[in-house]
């Protein structure tokens, strides 16, 4: 079957620094993939390349088999490839309802219209509210985004992405900065997403990765080191070297 998202020979370098080196991956429809690797491995860069926020030096990006490498970021979103951001990238002075309604309106193609008031766009507003309610943000949806608690802002990141009706969702450390006890709840919300949405997420908490990912891609220094099931990755000597090498040395020194 055609993978929901795939790359072939994706390359990117900043001067002499290679940040994406011949990246080839294929994520089947409905899968839950984790993308892990040490800081600076090129995980966020890969998301930027796939979503069009960075222009690759070469290679293909295939969404449901169609090459989207020449499309603008917003056109890729329209095709169903949507991301969230590691650092909150929200609309500080819009309230949560307005922000999600905006995203719904953009998807429905009415965001350029000013014939009717927002309150007359009943379907779009109701859908936005339903998305907020599904993430338990309905109670705070009239508060300005900048006044929301940090964890609620992380949820709003996901709500904005869901409003675009993604086929493939790229989550860049969705729980970054969220306390451990709350991050599990956040991932439970992600796990509860409809099964037809394909999810690729970056995460540093290995407990969450092993609990929620069906397969794991490990990146190191701009390359894919290995890909496999959680069991395979846990047993892989190279991954242990990358992740535990530094730690083991410290143990030896102590």
């Amino acid at each position, binding site marked *: 079957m055609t993978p929901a998202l795939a790359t072939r020979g994706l390359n990117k370098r900043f001067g002499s620094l290679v940040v994406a080196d011949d990246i080839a991956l294929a994520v089947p429809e409905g899968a839950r993939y984790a993308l892990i690797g040490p800081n600076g491995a090129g995980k966020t860069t890969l998301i930027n390349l796939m979503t069009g926020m960075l222009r690759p030096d070469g290679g293909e990006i295939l969404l449901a088999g169609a090459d989207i490498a020449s499309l603008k970021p917003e056109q890729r979103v329209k095709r169903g490839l949507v*991301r969230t951001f590691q650092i909150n990238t929200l609309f500080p002075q819009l309230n949560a309802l307005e922000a999600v309604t905006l995203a719904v309106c953009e998807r429905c193609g009415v*965001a350029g*219209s000013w014939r*009717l008031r*927002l309150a007359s766009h009943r379907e779009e507003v109701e859908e936005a*509210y339903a998305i907020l309610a599904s993430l338990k943000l309905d109670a705070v949806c009239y508060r300005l985004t900048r006044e929301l608690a940090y964890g609620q802002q992380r949820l709003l990141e996901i709500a904005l992405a869901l409003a675009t009706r993604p086929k493939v969702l790229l989550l860049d450390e969705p729980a970054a900065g969220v306390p451990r006890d709350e991050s599990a709840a956040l991932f439970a919300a992600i796990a509860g997403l409809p099964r037809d949405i394909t999810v690729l997420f970056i995460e540093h908490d290995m407990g969450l990765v092993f609990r929620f990912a069906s397969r794991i891609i490990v990146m190191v220094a701009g390359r894919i080191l290995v890909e496999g099931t959680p069991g395979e990755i846990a047993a892989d000597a190279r991954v242990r070297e990358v992740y535990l090498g530094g730690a083991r040395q410290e143990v030896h020194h102590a």
Partner: protein
Amino acid sequence: MSTAAAEPLAYLATQARWGKAEIAFWLATLLPFVLFPDYLVLASQIAITALFALSLDLILGYAGIISLGHAAFFGFGAYTAGLAAKWGWGEPLSGLLLAGAAAGLLGYATSVIISRFRHLALIMITLGLGLLLAEAANSARWLTGGADGLQGVRMWRLFGYFRFDLYGYTAYAYSLAVLFLIFLMCRRLTHSPFGLALRGIRENAIRMPAIGAPTRAHIRKVYTLAAVIAGIAGALLAQTTETVSLEVLSFQRSADVLVILILGGAGRLYGGIVGAIVYMVARDQFSGINPQYWYFWIGLLLIAVVMFLPNGILGGLAGIMARRRKATP
């Protein structure tokens, strides 16, 4: 679900509802006819400047696009309407439409460039475009009359009946009516999905493409619309004064309108109107006291407002109202 969702719809409907203060404000704009009949010429100039500031508010206050050359569209509209009247077509309303269309075309052409830039680059580009047009008008003496201004603008009667009189009755009524109609349009726009999209661009231009928004198309649209409105404002000035001088394209006018909007409070629609009233009445009074140095007082006023009311006069008022509501729940 529909019962649960009735609440957000009701909330949004409330946001767009007319407040008592708004209705009172528009009724008060009729007072000059009764209370200050000697100042109707000034009042019409204020209405025209308010319309100009309103057009800047759409791009600056809502979409966050800074411009130091907005007079380009004002001036282009003024010359279009002035030339139409000079060349024998002095009908005011069609003159307005013609000026709006001409300024809109110019606005669309420049919006293609504008939509690609932000922040400092925008300041430089809009400034450059403004200067370019001002100098072009200066050198095209055969067309614009150059520094002497455009002479021979003769307006027909409004609706074939109301003569543009020396006291400014027709001028103020006409300017005020146009301001009000365009204000209604802008008000609808700001409460529409497009208005929300503009605020989205202002709040986070990086996130917009990530929710599938064609940011540049939105910017081209609002910039063109703002140019149309600025052009109509310029046309009103040309028609009500029956002359056009190079000053309509000057950097001073671009800077003044920016100051007026910030003084009143950007992103609130009424900011430009309140700013225009305060600024122009202050200028009128200060220049009466001390004709040579009135910019000294304007400067003082500006510094005071920005220091004590960083969100403008209306922003300050809104802050006071919010505090009072909290104090008396």
